[in-house]
């Protein structure tokens, strides 16, 4: 098998030095997600967002790095921790926040909520609430790419918890059998809700979960956006050349609970604090940018201010938007 499974992480990192523009873009995109999620958490606390709300804080480098490696024509699909993916795909913070608030201008007219949002225009195919469901759906999108011979790649995300669902392996089998252009991205944030990976998984190296199907895999430092981008470059290139699927395990971490109502008693405060202080994906970029003299505090502050302004506008827009018309109850059931 010709898969580059033996690549060492330092080789990837060497290939992944970012230009000033890339660093700044990554910084801004990750910060946008961070600030959006903090605001969403705050608005949930105020009762403006209901139901389940799963925040992406801590995991920002994963989707931002993958997005940097992908083309606009490549499709993204993920499960319910999806706000970051939507923002990375270029969906409007206003529309996402309005949807979180159940308002009429939300991406799903207020009928989908946090876990169910889509944008055909931005090639974002959800937003799925069932753990594991994105795997075959993403492979199906890749099947359509193959069928049409359009050389797009399906970027299919799910968590370490979903990686234990049977449908994921049914999908691995078909994806390799039919050489589908799909990158499976396991966002291993170490906890499936409250159950740690070591308590739930016989094989904790998720990059090896495709071995039985001959799917090459890489374990990646998902807190380093450069490593994520470099790994995604390799995987996407592999798919685009018609070699079939690729599996990436992104080792990442969520700072918040599984959902808003999770007190996260299954892990120590020290563990969370250590990840935030030593591995924060945004702080890493910030430190590099300043250390290399690629930017000034002033420039970063102006990015911070721009992002804060966008988020404040999104929150204002969402809170002032109206609820859907009652007649919307009956629309969109059938096409």
């Amino acid at each position, binding site marked *: 098998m010709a898969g580059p499974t033996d690549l060492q992480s330092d080789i990837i990192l060497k290939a992944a030095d970012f230009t000033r523009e890339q660093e700044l873009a990554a910084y801004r995109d990750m910060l946008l997600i961070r600030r959006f999620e903090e605001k969403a958490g705050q608005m949930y606390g105020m009762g403006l967002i209901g139901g389940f709300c799963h925040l992406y804080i801590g995991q920002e480098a994963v989707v931002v790095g993958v997005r940097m490696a992908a083309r606009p024509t490549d499709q993204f699909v993920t499960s319910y921790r999806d706000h970051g993916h939507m923002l990375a795909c270029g969906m409007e913070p206003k529309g996402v926040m309005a949807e979180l608030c159940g308002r009429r201008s939300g991406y799903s007219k207020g009928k989908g909520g946090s876990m169910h949002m889509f944008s055909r225009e931005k090639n974002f195919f959800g937003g799925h609430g069932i753990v594991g469901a994105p795997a*075959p759906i993403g492979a199906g999108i890749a099947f359509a790419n193959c069928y049409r011979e359009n050389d797009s790649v399906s970027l299919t995300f799910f968590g370490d918890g979903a990686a234990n669902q049977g449908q994921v392996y049914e999908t691995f089998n078909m994806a390799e059998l039919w050489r589908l252009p799909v990158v499976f991205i396991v966002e291993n944030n170490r906890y499936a809700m409250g159950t740690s990976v070591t308590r739930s998984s016989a094989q904790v190296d998720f990059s090896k979960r495709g071995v039985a199907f001959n799917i090459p895999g890489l374990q990646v430092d998902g807190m380093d956006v450069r490593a994520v981008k470099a790994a995604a470059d390799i995987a996407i290139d592999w798919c685009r050349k018609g070699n079939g699927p690729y599996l990436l395990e992104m080792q990442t971490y969520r700072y918040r609970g599984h959902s808003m109502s999770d007190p996260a008693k299954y892990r120590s405060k020290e563990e969370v604090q250590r990840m935030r202080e030593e591995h924060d994906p945004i702080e890493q970029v910030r430190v590099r940018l300043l250390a290399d003299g690629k930017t000034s505090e002033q420039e970063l502050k102006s990015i911070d201010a721009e992002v804060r302004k966008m988020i404040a506008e999104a929150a204002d827009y969402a809170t002032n938007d109206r609820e859907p018309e009652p007649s919307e109850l009956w629309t969109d059931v059938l096409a």
Partner: protein
Amino acid sequence: MTVNVLMPALSPTMEQGKLAKWLKAEGDHIKAGDVLAEIETDKATMEVEAVDEGVLARILVPGGAENVAVNTPIAVIADEGEEVPAAPPSGERPPPAAPTQEPLGEEGKAQRQADVAAATPQPKETSIAPPPQVSAEPEVPAGTLMISMTMREALRDAMAEEMRRNPNVFILGEEVAEYQGAYKVTQGLLQEFGERRVVDAPITEYGFAGLGVGAAFAGLRPIVEFMTFNFAMQAIDHIVNSAAKTLYMSGGQINCPIVFRGPNGAASRVAAQHSQDYAAWYSQIPGLKVIAPSNASDAKGLLKAAIRDNNPVIFLENEILYGKSYEVPSLENFVIPIGKARIAREGDDVTLVSFSIGVDHALAAAEVLAKESIEAEVIDLRTLRPMDVPAIIASVKKTGRCVSIEEGWPQSGVGSEIAAKVQEEAFDYLDAPVLRVTGKDVPMPYAANLEKLALPSVDEIVAAAKAVLYR
């Protein structure tokens, strides 16, 4: 500028909680993400994180305070060096209330709920969307050449014609290609369309159903064959959660033009796990269309309609009918509208409503009844969702009596729905209670005599018809 930190809600149901302790003191510098305080509810202890940067200027609610209402200002964060008055700044905008723009008292809330209830549009008469309007033109023009073919051939021709018509249509399922179909329904399709469009799937129903849904989201038009619908139970999550609900959940953006088809219900002597009728299950789901044809002509016209439809369609076939021959119109473009029932036999005395193989039983019962001068009208529903309720009601208004026939179980069955509709919409016309003839309320037995007892019989239909006629 100062910002009020509000007492957060930590679950959709939380209204108040205890502010257990402050982890920051007045005057402390705050970064976004810093933990400010701990909140206790009856369920859990949670942390309050700062969203904004600045200085913790004032603590408004001390640590240890009980029963702090959600959205109460608990602290003030100010910019560096900013003066903060002792009381919360009066110019601060009050927190926006969830759905409305102004706070409402209890009375106002009740009024608002009443307003919303009054404003909620109700489809005429019931909570179920009405069936689509369909044209009254005959489906088969007079003088059309009819040719004899089996149900199996009609289904194959429907797929082949639609595949020739639309290059986005493809077939995915177990044994559909090389083997030519487990029940030979896809015979010859691999030879005509090749392996790109006739795809043998591994035995992996959940996986290939989900894969088909993804391909449909991306704009292809998959026909997913289940070797039988008994095996689709493994895939029902994707049928219901992914295929049926996504159009609604996406606010109308992502439709799912897919057909799930295969034999449904009892075959012969294959026992409990291979003999279930799923008609009632799927017909309950908004976002799906459900079809169950009783003959080759309907099967062809309806399968073509299903493939052209922009929604997920469940197409329930019957193994026993596959080999039976019927007259099928020889027409270029023979498409039967979804949602339109057919009067299989006219009569004035009693209405028998069924679908799929149940129509055969109903017609046989009608023959027996005719010998006793009872003229039964047999309605073949053809589509179970949307159900052609007006056709049933029109017949019941004529006959005053109704019997439903299905192979599925009685509780919450298709017959239950028919009975409910008839009493809602034709109560004054009924001369007797609606009776249901169904499969017996047991798993399907293997022994030949027991299986026969478990399924609805012509004798039972005759008895039910006589019962509603008090004869």
